[in-house]
């Protein structure tokens, strides 16, 4: 069978999730999966241009637009993990133990603490912007706000260097935990929920796309087997991704 090209975000690849899932899928279906791990924006662009067969990302509004504009079909929920607000141990804005993400952002702003933003239109960045707008504030009103324009790992390192706060997905934070002097200060807010969606590139647009393999991949990922594998994947004994595909 022809190889399947998957464009996905760095969080799924760098956390080791794909390394755990794909051999199982490949064994079951005899289809080799080629992973191109990039930012959400670029992953969707590759799908839009028909350069990959299937896309696995986390930015619901962008995903919906992708389907709406008929670049993709068959979008399915796969799993979620969650965002957490991390910061330096000294915690100058006193966020520790909080649950409310929007309130935490307000405290950061009031304390004029340094906050490092992804600033790259990624799913994480868009989530962050939602909290600011719920707060009713312009993030740039804070002189400590740094729009970094970089990936999650780099933003965590930068926050650690600058003793700053940051919004991150839990998987990347665990993967980077040993390298940064940061800890989770705020978690558990339902608004911090981070869902991943998978979708096939529209075969009507690109007839020679590997649509069959893409569908099989989506089916497997949302099947009980795939869902179970996701929940079995652990880093340091902790589960990072929680399957939530509709049966």
């Amino acid at each position, binding site marked *: 069978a022809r190889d399947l*090209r998957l464009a996905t975000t760095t969080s799924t690849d*760098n956390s080791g999730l794909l390394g755990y899932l794909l051999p199982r899928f490949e064994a079951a279906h005899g289809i080799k999966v*080629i*992973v191109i791990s990039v930012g959400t924006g670029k992953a969707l662009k590759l799908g839009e*241009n028909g*350069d990959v067969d299937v896309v696995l990302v986390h930015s619901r509004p962008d995903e919906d637009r992708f389907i709406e504009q008929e670049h993709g079909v068959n979008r399915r929920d796969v799993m979620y993990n969650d965002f957490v607000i991390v910061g330096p141990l000294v915690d100058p804005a006193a966020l520790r133990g909080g649950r409310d993400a929007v309130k935490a952002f307000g405290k950061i702003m009031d304390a004029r603490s340094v906050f490092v933003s992804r600033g790259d239109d990624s799913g994480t960045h868009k989530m962050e912007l939602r909290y600011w707008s719920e707060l009713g504030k312009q993030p740039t009103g804070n002189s400590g706000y740094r729009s970094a324009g970089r990936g999650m*790992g*780099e933003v965590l390192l930068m926050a650690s260097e600058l003793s700053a706060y940051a919004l991150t997905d839990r998987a990347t934070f665990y*993967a*980077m935990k040993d390298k940064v002097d940061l800890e989770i200060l705020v978690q558990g807010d339902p608004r911090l929920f981070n869902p991943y969606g998978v979708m096939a590139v529209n075969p009507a647009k690109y007839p020679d796309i590997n649509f069959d393999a893409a569908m099989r991949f989506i089916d497997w990922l949302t099947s009980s087997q795939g869902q179970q594998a996701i929940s079995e994947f652990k880093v340091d004994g902790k589960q990072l991704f929680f399957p939530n595909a509709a049966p």
Partner: protein
Amino acid sequence: MELIETTRQALRLLFAGDAELWRIVWVSLKISVGALLLMSPVAIAVGYLLATQRFPGRRIIVVVTQALFAFPTVVVGLLLYMLLSRQGPLGSLHLLFTQTAMMIGQMLIAAPILVAFTLSAVQGADARVRETAIVLGAGRWRTALTVLTEVRFGVMAALFNGFGRVISEVGCALMVGGNIAGMTRNMPTAIALETTKGEFAQGVALGIVLMVLALGVNFAMSWAQGAGAQPQ
């Protein structure tokens, strides 16, 4: 220190013949050496012609070639992507995310470097070299070969620089190669990946492995070329 330990470990893996590391090394070398071998005859010829022929617009071409040094490799990658993408004019060739695409990108990146430095080497040569070849009855090709042989250190420097540039560039390789494990992952994209993961020591170690390779290639090249760079 962690850095030294990791580097030692990386070099140990290299010499122990670690399959994963060697595959990456091999992809790097194959693509970059290939790109250089394919591009240098053309680029050296162009540089030679620019140095020896006068025609209107020559000066402009020279300055533009030198300005192309400033063209970020990622933009080369973007343009090539647009060409090779399924929607692009060459989409039907299905070259995207292949080593071939990476090689084409590196050829484009190497070209201005090779042209400009050949040009400056030939321009710096004593005019009598070319004249002597001509009056002794050498044709265009032999004359060119003679001149280039006489300025071989300059041509060599062009090749070294071109090689260094392509084997270490990451922007284009990521864009058209995709950093696919086991297929299009080369040293620089592997380093970039380690960096994103925060594995700095690992990244530096791979960088040092790359340096060791480049040193090896450069020594081999300068040895093959004989004599070596002696002051006059």
